[in-house]
């Protein structure tokens, strides 16, 4: 059966900070003349809000290997750890290159490097990579991204190596250095997917199933010394990792200590004052709060300790176009005029950390962003125009219900809902709020049978490309009635579906970007969704921290390159 292509957003509750798929930095501080050769030493502290709930590569849902996991796990490819545009591209990691496609991008062939070892000195083989991928299919190890089940031939029904030890036939390992993937359709984005932790090697002899994550076998520069879920993770150097074999990870600190479960305000306070070990501290998930924002931009000392990045994500209102009154395009347009994006921005933390969006694609070139604003609402909405549109359409006394999560942890909770309620009230539209438990929110909104007419939603890129951003939301063949549906507008236009297929067959990224952008602009005219904001990230780091450069993929600085010497 066909599967959806879900993407993720920052710090979803399950994978916590490990799913640090923040990215797409375009600015960032310019630290000149950083020499990776002399950066060694010291202990880096990571102060985080979200706890690490899983450390098993099969169970992590991360983009580009995640921030902390990529210190432990090398994958076939990984994100190119650079600022800006360059950082949105994949780079070879365990493999010698980004992979060789054949059969119209339905077969991908990788060759492993020669100088790669597990933390116990055992050489890493293609069988280890294959086994790692197979594990992620086991129902005992849920949580990983679902792409592989969808893309690999015959994988949808594969129950994992514990029940089916014979393994997946669509992954071939003719020798210890070669691994070949057979896909069911062309996937030009395969090198992006190969950055996921499911592509990390797992030695079968060391696999303890659900208990493996207590001490996952490292292939990266660090290995686990101590791990307590949701509390602490201490990493020390892996003696069998060599810098020569891994040019992307600088691995400067000798030791990395992650503390999680802290309050965001406390983290920022500690980073600001930087007492003791806090001078060597960073955070990967606590965006600055108003107190620090007040000090920024005034030439204070804190200005020098700020990293700014942008992770491609959009918060939007999803219309169910199969339900009245949202089947009426004029109603959707009127609401698009009425929206007060400043209120929404403020509800989410102010203009420093989110920006208003009139497009569905966030403003990253890698995704193919093209600006448009078909229903200009200005900063504070245009209720008069909205009323006018409604009146012209003969709609009066409009009362609608808005579904939202019951807490603000994912930014689509009561705060934003209240802001939207107020904005629509100015246009004479009465909004009643329908809070749905955060834990079941996606289940309710993901089944067309239970999907509300209007729901707050958010979408982030699993990798920086237009495809994973637009396909799940607008491809009519992705409407899944059994659950897990993300095409909430339930929009199905054969022409659009055909265009998606055409872009996916393209091999030139630049050409693909332009076509994705054009498609977004075309869909925007239909007001199928009401884009609200996109994410901007402002992170502080400690006084001693050097080379805190946000990469273009996830919008946060890369721990593998930070130095506290």
């Amino acid at each position, binding site marked *: 059966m066909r599967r959806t292509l879900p993407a993720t957003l920052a710090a979803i509750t399950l994978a916590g900070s490990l799913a640090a798929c923040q990215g797409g930095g375009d600015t960032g501080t310019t630290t000149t003349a950083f020499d990776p050769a002399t950066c060694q030493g010291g202990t880096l502290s990571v102060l985080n809000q979200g706890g690490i709930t899983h450390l098993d590569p099969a169970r992590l849902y991360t983009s580009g290997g995640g921030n902390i996991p990529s210190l432990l796990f090398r994958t076939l490819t990984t994100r190119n750890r650079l600022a800006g545009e360059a950082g949105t591209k994949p780079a070879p990691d365990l493999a010698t290159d980004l992979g060789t496609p054949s059969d119209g991008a339905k077969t991908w062939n990788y060759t492993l490097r020669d100088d790669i070892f597990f933390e116990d000195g055992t050489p890493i083989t293609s069988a280890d990579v294959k086994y790692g991928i197979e594990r992620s299919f086991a*129902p*005992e190890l*849920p949580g990983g991204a679902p792409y592989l089940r969808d893309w690999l031939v015959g994988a949808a029904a594969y129950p994992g190596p514990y029940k089916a030890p014979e393994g997946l036939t669509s992954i071939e390992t003719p020798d210890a250095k070669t691994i070949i993937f057979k896909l069911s359709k062309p996937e030009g984005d395969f090198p992006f997917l190969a950055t996921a932790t499911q592509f990390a090697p797992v030695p079968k002899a060391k696999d303890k199933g*659900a208990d493996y994550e207590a001490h996952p076998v490292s292939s990266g520069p660090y290995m686990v010394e101590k791990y*307590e879920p949701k509390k602490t993770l201490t990493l020390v150097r892996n003696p069998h990792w060599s810098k020569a074999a891994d040019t992307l990870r600088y691995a400067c600190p000798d030791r990395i200590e992650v503390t999680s479960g802290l309050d965001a305000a406390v983290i920022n306070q500690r980073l600001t004052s930087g007492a003791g070990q806090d001078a060597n501290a960073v955070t990967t998930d606590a965006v600055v709060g108003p107190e620090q924002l007040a000090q920024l931009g005034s030439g204070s000392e804190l200005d020098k300790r700020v990293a700014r990045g942008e992770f491609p994500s959009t918060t939007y209102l999803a219309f169910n176009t199969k339900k009245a009154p949202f089947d009426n395009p004029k109603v959707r347009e009127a609401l698009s005029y009425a929206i007060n994006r400043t209120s929404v921005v403020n509800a989410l933390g102010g203009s420093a950390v989110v920006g208003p969006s009139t497009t569905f694609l966030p403003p990253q070139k890698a995704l193919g962003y093209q600006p448009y604003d078909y229903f200009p609402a200005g900063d504070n909405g245009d209720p008069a125009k909205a009323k006018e549109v409604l009146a012209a359409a003969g709609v009066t006394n409009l009362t609608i219900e808005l579904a939202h999560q019951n807490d603000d942890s994912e930014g689509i909770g009561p705060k934003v809902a209240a802001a939207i309620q107020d904005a629509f009230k100015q246009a004479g539209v009465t909004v009643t709020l329908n809070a749905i438990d955060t834990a079941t929110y996606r289940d309710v909104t993901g089944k067309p049978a239970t999907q509300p007419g209007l729901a707050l939603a958010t979408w982030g890129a699993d990798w920086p490309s237009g495809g994973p951003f637009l396909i799940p939301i607008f491809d009519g063949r992705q409407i899944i009635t059994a659950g897990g549906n993300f095409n909430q507008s339930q929009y199905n236009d054969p022409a659009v579906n055909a265009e998606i297929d055409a872009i996916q067959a393209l091999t030139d990224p630049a050409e693909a970007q332009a076509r994705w952008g054009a498609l977004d602009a075309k869909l925007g005219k239909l007001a199928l969704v009401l884009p609200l904001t996109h994410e901007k990230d402002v992170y502080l780091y400690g006084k001693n921290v050097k080379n805190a450069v946000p990469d273009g993929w996830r919008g946060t600085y890369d721990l593998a390159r930070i130095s506290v010497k």
Partner: protein
Amino acid sequence: MTGYLLRRVGGAIVVLLGLSIIVYALFYLAPKDPAILTCGKGCTPDRLAEVRAAMGLDASPPAQYWEFLRGLFLGRDFPAGPDVRHCPAPCLGYSFETDQPVTKLLTDRLPVSASLAIGAEILSLAVGIGAGLLSGLRRFRILDRIVNGLILAGYAVPVFLVGLFLLLLFCVRLQWLPFPTYVPFTTDPAAWAENLILPWIALAVIQSAAYARLTRAGVQESLAEDHVRTARAYGIPEGRIVRTRALRGALVPLVTLTAIDLAAIMASAVLTETMFGLPGVGQLLVGAVNQIDLPVVVGVTLLTGFLVVVANAVADLLYAAVDPRVQLR
């Protein structure tokens, strides 16, 4: 005494079983599926069914409860990859969220809650008994008034308000103390105390009010009793009367209350733990409830119940110890 203990234990088992049944029932009545969370984003119905089966959620609720009970007394095996993993009795299962044994989660959290509870109790008792005694003896009118006011204020402030105020004052304005993070006593006793002092004070502000009230009432009541009059009539000095008789009388309700409060803080200082970011049992529960982490919720509830039951028994024993008139049967 033996009969008393036997009945106590029997009663405790009934209470705990009842509690676990209620929690199970509530969670299966609630329209929520923990497998959805575990399965993660973009989970298909097929995959969801597999995950649900792997979590043992496909069986009927009574069957699941039966398995849970068996695990509690006999231990239990869980399928988990290449081998089964054995969870020895008393097995509370594995957390849906982090896959850790619930017993380990509880034993990890308990020291935090115990540190909070014990420190807060000691502080509350010292302040409460002192204030209550001073005002109960009515040596200084003005003091009586002040204590009275404090008692009322202690009644009227919610713990999070005290906590907020303390944080604002000591961590933000004065910067005398760090923002509390839990440091185990065994790691660094000084840091342990330094980080816990604010939560202790916050709890003590409220708790000591109750103790002061109780001490004052107990002292005043004891002093009005006939046997105190007898002691006075036989020339026993007032100080000695207060020490050996009045305080003794006030102690009786106080010790029972202390035992119960200790358990209550350990089990349910949710607000204090949230306010000060302490990873205690209360926080564990709040997180587990939000994540529909049934094994953890059941585990915490049982632990809470266990603590309360034990505290009540201890209170009775203490009661019998401080008051010779009381016999346990």
